[in-house]
């Protein structure tokens, strides 16, 4: 029923029309998806976590790139090199060890070089979030193009592209990224590109499977019959109708990418010391794990929370985008 149609019916229907009207609204579209997410507490929790860490990442990125830690050293403590502390391995507030009592000056304690752990966690968020987003965007773009072209044209193009992608898929993720970074460089930017390339197969296979069925739809045939060029058909008609599962996968993939990059930092690839990153903090803390467990607990918790946040949101998004699950 059209919107105008319901309007014309007027007030006499409004008593019984409440439920009926909800039924006729479409179960597709941006507004509907957002309303679904808004009524899903787990998705909202995920969104809150993501927003929280993203906000921190933005602030820390501005301070790092544009202000050279001016904000941190003026209003807080310098995360890489704090001139005021020489107290190493200080415990969190409320605990004590042989080095002393936890203080509010360093609420989560200090590391083996006397740097404030909270500050380093704060500035490490930038690395996790940017790499997670950038790597996923690279994988998403590459995978969508490869998968859509393969699925739309079929035949030998499909075979060539998908076999190439599957070859990539056959190599273990971490090995692939490490090989890539060994060849090109250990910097963070190569970690993004490496993880991005390594996640191309996931997206390519996912979107191809949808494109193969979408390209048989009549509206694609109609666009061809109207003289729309192939690139236009793929971009405007095929990809938008195949994109929902890819969007969900992308959200989950950000969590995966953050985990992978933390693993890489642990192994010494990625952000180089003294730039703070969660994986590197974990790596440095492992020598102190038994006497000072909090040192490894904090970065571990940060990684866990972020990844859980993206997973919760991804699950909520999948439910919202799948009209069959709606109650």
């Amino acid at each position, binding site marked *: 029923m059209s919107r*105008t149609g319901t309007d014309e019916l007027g007030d006499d229907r409004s008593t019984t029309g409440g439920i009926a009207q909800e039924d006729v609204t*479409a179960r597709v579209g941006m507004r509907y998806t957002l309303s679904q997410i808004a009524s899903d507490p787990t998705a909202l929790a995920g969104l809150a976590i993501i927003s929280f860490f993203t906000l921190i990442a933005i602030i820390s990125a501005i301070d790092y790139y544009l202000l050279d830690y001016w904000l941190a050293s003026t209003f807080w403590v310098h995360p890489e090199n704090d001139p005021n502390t020489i107290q190493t391995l200080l415990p969190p507030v409320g605990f004590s060890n042989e080095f002393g009592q936890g203080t509010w000056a360093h609420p989560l304690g200090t590391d083996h070089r006397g740097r404030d752990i909270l500050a380093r966690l704060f500035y490490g968020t930038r690395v996790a979030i940017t790499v997670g987003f950038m790597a996923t965007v690279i994988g998403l773009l590459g995978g969508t193009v490869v998968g859509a072209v393969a699925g739309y044209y079929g035949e030998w193009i499909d075979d060539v592209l998908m076999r190439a992608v599957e070859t990539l898929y056959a190599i273990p993720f971490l090995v692939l990224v490490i090989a890539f970074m060994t060849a090109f460089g250990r910097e963070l930017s190569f970690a993004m590109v490496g993880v991005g390339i390594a996640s191309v197969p996931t997206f390519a296979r996912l979107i191809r499977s949808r494109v193969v069925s979408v390209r048989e739809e009549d*509206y694609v*045939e109609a666009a061809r019959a*109207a*003289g729309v060029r192939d690139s236009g058909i793929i971009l405007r*008609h095929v990809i938008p109708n195949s994109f929902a599962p890819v969007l969900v996968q992308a959200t989950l993939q950000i969590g995966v990418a953050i985990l992978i990059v933390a693993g890489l930092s642990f192994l010494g690839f990625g952000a180089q010391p003294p730039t703070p990153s969660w994986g590197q903090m974990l790596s440095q803390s492992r020598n102190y794990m038994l006497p000072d467990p909090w040192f490894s607990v904090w970065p571990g918790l940060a990684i866990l929370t972020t990844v859980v946040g993206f997973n919760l949101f991804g699950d909520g998004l999948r439910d919202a985008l799948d009209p069959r699950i709606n109650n």
Partner: protein
Amino acid sequence: MTDPLLEVHDLKTQFFTEEGVVRAVDGVSFTVEPGEIVGLVGESGAGKSVAAQSILRLVERPGEIVDGEILFRGDPLVQFEERAGKLRPTEEMLTNDEMRKHIRGREIAIIFQDPMESLNPVYTVGGQLREFIEINRDMGEKEAKALAIDMLREVGIPEAAERYSDYPHQFSGGMRQRVLIAMALSCEPSLIIADEPTTALDVTVEAQILELVDDLQEKYGTSFIWVTHDMGVVAEITDRVNVMYLGEIVEQAEVDDLFHDTKHPYTDALLDSLPRPDQTVEELNPIAGVMPEAINPPSGCRFHPRCPDARVVCTRIHPDNRIVDSDGAPHRAACLKNDEVFDVGYWESEPIELQAGTGFGAGLAEDRGGAGE
């Protein structure tokens, strides 16, 4: 008579499947004059949709146009010549790029069968209409939008300016079919191929759409190829009719001639299977059996296993589509019953029993037996 708008000569489109070559369209010839509505009629599987798609070269693998010629205003859309012992497309045949830029949408548009599936669900109806207009009429966004709203109004969509930004799911089936007609007409093509456009609609909406097409056809002077299996629609709207059976045209005539002076038993059978207001019958007469597979068509006349008038000669001789009545407009038929034209001794030949049983089950059994031969 002026030059025909579209000429199709001996078109052959085949599907190369694992079971064998399906001769979906097997030597079809017909013409479309400017401003004329030509019907393409037949049962499901007769090859009418494939013939229609072949005109725009939209047949997808494993299907392929293997032979024949299609001329549109003299431009070869399809043309083959023999080179080095093989049939190859000629140099003059339009390239895929030329087809896309100059023919599809601009000169020949197509309206598909299912209005529910032919609109992209992620864009507004107006946005899609505008996209097609921008591509085919070289217009800017504003101009195209104005024209799109005009066209929506033209095909009878109330409050066109508001409905422009509605999504396809907010339209009813009949309204969507109107949108598709607007889409086809908005690029002012010379020929519109309507591939069973009213099959998915109920009869009252169908009547409205037919009336709309009739009006618009008069106004714009567009030619139509109307693909359908419904003889009622044929009578309503077409000027000339081509009846297809198993990839071949079996009868070709002006619409009045076809109904009142039927020359092919298949056309007769199609007409008999319909309720007609001018005749009272006890029960309708369905056509016996089902259409055989086009992989392995019957010998002789392809209709003979289901034909009530079949004789022994029909199993041996394959009739081509000849002019059987040249009073006024030529009336062609591919049936040996017209013995004065074919001269193969039809009337002396022994009649044969109707091979196909009646009813669905009988037809299926017959079909399986036939395929095993």
